[in-house]
């Protein structure tokens, strides 16, 4: 069973189910508190019956700085998924999906054009998950990740910048069908 609500800093004392998983990064306090302070409705947790946090999603609302407005890679007002994690014991229950949906509601409330995220090109499971939720690849960011999990000898690994249009983007102007053909460099990404 899980209940979904906004994050509270005391949750950091109950995130072991998620953060002891080797695939989940533990950040400094400032990182979590920054999201809590700036986008409290976009930091959501799933809590089990015993008070353990078994999943959380961190997101933000932003745009590229104004002085980039005429730049081809300028990002208009949008929401971004920074982190999404579900404890191993709570996977396959739809918790990640519910957390993502809650973030989308917050993104619509915040009048975002779209929601985006970065995912390793090799992370097929995550890509499939996001595609099933209506996300599609918008562009490929070359060597975005320093390490290549499939080929350690490679310089880095590409990321997919995936997007889902929000309600504001009625005409779906901020997504593209052939995003896998568009390649950009990491410095082009805000």
């Amino acid at each position, binding site marked *: 069973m899980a209940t*979904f609500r906004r994050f509270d800093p005391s949750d950091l004392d109950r995130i072991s189910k998620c953060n002891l998983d080797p695939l989940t990064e533990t950040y400094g306090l*400032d990182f979590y508190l920054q999201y809590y302070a700036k986008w409290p409705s976009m930091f959501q947790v799933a809590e089990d019956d015993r008070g353990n946090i078994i999943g959380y999603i961190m997101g933000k609302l932003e745009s590229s700085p104004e002085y980039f407005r005429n730049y081809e890679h300028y990002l208009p007002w949008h929401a971004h998924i920074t982190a999404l994690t579900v404890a191993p014991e709570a996977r396959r229950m739809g918790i990640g999906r519910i957390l993502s949906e809650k973030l989308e509601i917050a993104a619509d409330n915040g009048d975002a054009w779209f929601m985006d995220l970065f995912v390793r090109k090799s992370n097929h499971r995550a890509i499939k998950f996001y595609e099933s939720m209506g996300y599609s690849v918008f562009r490929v960011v070359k060597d975005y990740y320093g390490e290549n999990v499939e080929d350690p000898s490679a310089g880095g690994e590409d990321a997919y910048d995936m997007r889902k249009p929000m309600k504001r983007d009625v005409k779906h102007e901020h997504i593209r069908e052939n995003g896998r053909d568009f390649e950009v460099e990491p410095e082009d990404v805000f």
Partner: protein
Amino acid sequence: MNGYRAHRPTLRDDCGMQLQRAWQDGLWANIINMARSKAKTSKDSYFEALELAARSQLDTPLDRQAAWQAVDKIINDKVVVKDPATADLYDWALVSTGMTSDQYPKYIGAMRVNVVKANPKAKEIAKTSFFSCVANSDWEHAQQIAAVMDKSFPAERSFHFRNVITTYIYAASLDDNDVKKSMFRTLALRQIEKAKTSRPQESSSEPLPPRVIATQDEMLLWLNMVIKETKGDDLVKCLTDPSYNALSALKDGFETVCSTMMDQLKELGAWDEFYTICKTIFENGVAFWLVEDHEAKEKAKRDAQPKQEKSLEQKAAELMAAMDRLNITSPQDLLKAKRAAESIATRTIVKDWKMWENFIIAASKQPNARKALEEVEGFLTTITEFGAQHPIYRTQLDMAKLIIAFETPSEPENDITNLSARVDGLMRRFFGLLSTDEVTSLVSRLPSLYSQSEESQFRKIMLQTFHLRLRYFFTTSSKCYKPSSTYRGATCGICHSDSVPERCDPCLKEIAKECIWTWKAGLENEALLEQLKGVGASPYTDLTIIGSVCLLKLAGLDGLWGRHDNSPLAWADGKRVMQAILWMDTQHHSQSIKRQDLSVLLVKLYVLIGAASHAKPIWDSLEVKNVTLNCLGPLFADRLGTMAPGLWQNHVHGNTPTSQYLYYYRSAINKNIPNSLRLSFDNGSYASILGNLATKAKHKQSCTLVMALADHYRGIRSVDGEVMQGTWQDELAQHIKPGMRLYDTTDYGPFPNIEANPVRPIQDFLSIGPGLSEDRAHLSLLSERFLSLIAYKEPKDYRPGNAALAKDRDRNVVTPACQDMAEWMATLLNGADIRDKLTLPEVEYYSVVQALATYVGLSLTASKGDGLDRFVESIRCQLINQVTRLTERRKTASEADVTRVDVLHDVSALHANGMLRESALATVHTIRYLERARGADPKSPMPKWMKEHLSVLREAASTANRRLKEYIERLSTTVNPAGWADRIAEWAFGDLANGSRAVSDDADETYENSDTDMLLYKAIGPKRNFTMAIDLIVHSWAEAARGWSKVKLVE
């Protein structure tokens, strides 16, 4: 230092290039000259401040004090500083020369207010001044600035709500007996109430005025204040007020406000009110879902129709509609948007498990509970249909139906035929509602579920594991036992053996054997292992944990830890303990993705058997760092300072197991949380402001913080033998006063949750002693303060003009301080349940320190030794008792068993020896202090009675140190010789390991003719991980011995 103060202030534009450059380069002498000259010519006090700021960076005390004197003069002469840049310079100068947050309000806070009052329309100046006050927790002046800004900009909603919350925080920061507290509290509540009641009653298409609550965060501010300041029925009345309640919150689309209100009603036990509101929420929820579903179906229909070329008119109409949606400006659209927000919030909240659970409880408390529960079930079933794509909702519905089944008033007959279905997977929640017969019936029926030959191997192993888990769960519950007719204890309901409640040894043996049998068979099934890997299931880890925990219990490890001996291992059966460890280690290494519960168990067990250096890499692989240190750190680091001195050998380079904790707390308290507070204010996240303040308090008063400090200083003392100066003033601890509330936030979530009895969780009997507690934290801090006080030495160049007077002053400080500490420690040590919070060696150590503090507090001014003898005797006895107990245990071992007992005894007694070392060290430092305080003056020599007392104490400390020396030498010689690997194998598996007993052939083996030792030996024996694990344990013991050989004992 707070983040905002880390940077040099920017100079005013009229300073000129030369001065600007010198300022940037830190050329203080040049700046002083230039600023002085500019001050003369311009008569601008800014340049005086600039000169003083530059002087504050010099080394001479006179220069460093100059800015302080200037600000003192400004305060005394009531000069009003109006220039913000001048205030910035004074702020920076004073911070650079050690200004604390306590000094801030007087020296800078008041100045900041004057600056804002002089520039009431300057937003940036106000902002800088406000955050300067907030960063220093100067809420008095922050409130004054916020009030000025609210008045200056009445149309700016952020200034208004900032004023409200700052006034509220200021009121909360005042002492209860301060008359201003009530005044400011009332003011804040009135302001926020007005902001709420000024909202229009009906949905309006007009934007809300600036001083009225409009956003969810503003409403949460109101709600948090009301919840904090209103109690009982008044709060219920407030939360159910027709003008604004949870339903109104949903109308605004404020889901968090709604759920917080409902949570409060639940907390208050207002179940009737909860039920009434909740029912309406669910009615609305179902309605919104139906509308949503209808619209989705209509859209799907439209999408399915063949697309026709759109006419120009159609395209234009679509474009207009799209434009309309982008710019919601018309009143109708605003109302439509509000309705959409309400729909989303309501549809979200009616799917939340907590709402379901509480709705069921509320329904069960209605006069016609049966009808109400039926109604609830109807709602939940309908709503689940709309979320069927998420498996969790189906699980939720199953659980809800089960709860409803149990909550519905029962029929007279009690049919147990469908029992398995009723409790499948939900044992913990409903176990208490079943009878012993129902429990045993369920356990006996489960094997039939997986014994069918047509079952797939995957399903079979999953059900088998579930059965063993269930059986273990029942074995650990009192429900499994009936009073015995022939025996004083109880009879196990499953195997019918006579037993003690909650611990049936025959059952534990049987479960362990079955786990090993199943686990061993599974390891040889490659296809099944692949299948399990594919779906991320790990039943073999579950089997290992359940079976190993049975072995640990059979070893006697779940006795009363540490309360009566040096370690929980003191009387445990080493063979079973070693078997469990080797089994878990084998499973741990066989998995590419490690299970956290198994890793944590291994860490605890390795620490328990004195192999901390082997536990460390496993712990490190869990990557506990940053924010998780506060809650998970104690699982590994607690008491490490007493056990593993070797880990502190590099402390001069800042490399100790505790240094990352201290770094984390300093950053969190001084930088991260203040920064977040600022961001919260900037973004109007009012609930986050209150949350940040609570987080700061919890970090400053964390038991983990105190643990890290105590272990840090103990670890360093073990290597240096000296007490670090300044412990008393450590910024992380100085605010913690005796009696202050401290928070234990240890998270035991990573441990397996397989016990039925929540009073005796696994972590309890796998630890050296009880977990963190407020009382232990206070005792350790008081002990550190005592040591810091008596070990304080004046700087070498300190030459007091009047030595006798200086000594008097010292006595006047030390005497009351020691008396206070002794009194607080006595209160804590006399607490009713203190023995449940400390190990026995800790009780003895703190008793020694308490007696030493009492002795110092009384003897410094005593003219006679009468009455003090008993304290000396108490200290002596405590030290000798510790020595005796550490020696006696070894003597009780039989001759044949001596080697094994020797080693297990020695490696498991590291903590006890560490505490003895601390006791001896505290005694020696106390003797040294008293000799300095009363012995150095030839005119007033140390009285004879004190000399005798100190001689007794010295002898006791020497005895302790002698025993420690023997221990260290023995530890080194016992664990180092070769051949240990074979010996450990023999401990664990006896004749099987040395070849005296033949290892049976797998082909001849049946479950019935095999035994646990044989099964386990064959499964984890030399062919597998066994030898490597043993080598690492021996290596780790040798490391521990090496670390202890570096310990410096103080004579």
